[in-house]
């Protein structure tokens, strides 16, 4: 597990770095495939099978193929190169490292990792800041067991995700929020039913409208104008 994680983590980071320093667009695409494919593997390792498969199918098999297709259609020479001046790269590298340092240093310290309990179930063990954070935010988002997403399912999150997209959340028990805002809301409109956890019906449906609109837009730009064809 940890060896696999290490392998794919390094592969995805290395792939990302090589995307940045590659000069040829298709090589960039190749390294991007390596990076994003490894990210999909990390998803599998994090028990997110469905997300990992979606990443492979949509991102690597769809979006990246589309990008490479775009490269082929717009290549002016046999191998399209992009020159980036060394100075620019150096500046970008320094700024990037500084930002990376900022992100890392702002991340809470301590660790959260998976361990086995007596029954052989994996549980999340948190130490340091993460434990403090978990204790602080837990009351508002109580979930069946210790608050983290259920681990007994071994990555079989398909059904809960399906329920969530329908708007039902069997993975989260009904909770009475102890926060002020939650109380108020429920008091204000009891007819709205228990809002135990967000159900994602609306985003799921509205994303389809979005995709439709976007598809029309892309098709409009890509298609040739009929009238100009007739004129010529």
């Amino acid at each position, binding site marked *: 597990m*940890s060896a696999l*994680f290490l392998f794919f*983590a390094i592969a*995805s*980071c290395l792939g*990302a*770095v090589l*995307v*940045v320093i590659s000069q040829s*667009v298709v090589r*960039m695409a190749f390294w*991007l495939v390596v*990076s*994003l494919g490894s*990210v999909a593997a990390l998803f599998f390792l*994090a028990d*997110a099978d469905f*997300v990992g498969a979606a990443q492979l199918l*949509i*991102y690597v098999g*769809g*979006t990246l193929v*589309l*990008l490479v*297709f*775009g*490269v082929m259609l*717009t290549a002016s020479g046999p191998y399209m190169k*992009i020159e980036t001046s060394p100075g*620019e790269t150096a500046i*970008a*590298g320094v*700024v*990037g*490292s500084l*930002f*990376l340092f900022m*992100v*890392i240093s702002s*991340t809470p310290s301590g660790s*959260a*990792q998976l361990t086995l309990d007596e029954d052989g179930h994996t549980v*999340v063990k948190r130490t340091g800041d*993460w434990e403090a954070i*978990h204790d602080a935010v837990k009351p508002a*988002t109580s979930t069946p067991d210790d608050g*983290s*997403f259920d681990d007994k399912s071994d990555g079989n*999150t398909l059904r809960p*995700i399906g329920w*969530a997209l329908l708007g039902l959340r069997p*993975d989260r028990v009904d909770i009475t929020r102890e926060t002020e805002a939650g109380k108020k809301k429920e008091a204000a409109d009891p007819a709205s039913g228990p809002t135990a*956890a967000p159900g*994602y019906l609306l985003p799921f449906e509205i*994303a389809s409208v979005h995709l439709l609109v*976007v598809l029309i*837009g*892309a*098709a409009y*730009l890509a298609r040739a104008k009929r009238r100009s064809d007739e004129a010529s």
Partner: protein
Amino acid sequence: MATLNAYLLVGAVLFVCGVICMATKRNGIGVLMGVELVLNGANVNFVAFSKFTSLGLDGQVFSLFIIVLAAAEAAVALAIALNFYNNHLTIDVDRGNKLKG
């Protein structure tokens, strides 16, 4: 080994590489690849938080939406890039210099 912070580190590296890629590449499609890296940095974060913190399933659902929306965005971006290429015969972003003020 596979701790939350290790995942977050991967996410941060992807994010920073993506930002550098967006900043340095001249090629429109190269910039889009940087964008994909940035989005994946966020995706790794979401999945990791979903696993290790009380975010739970919401993280996974969020990352699914990201994947779908990123695909839509890439399709549009590619159509625009092809349109740019048809007009300019290049995809070099800096070569477009009609718009200066």
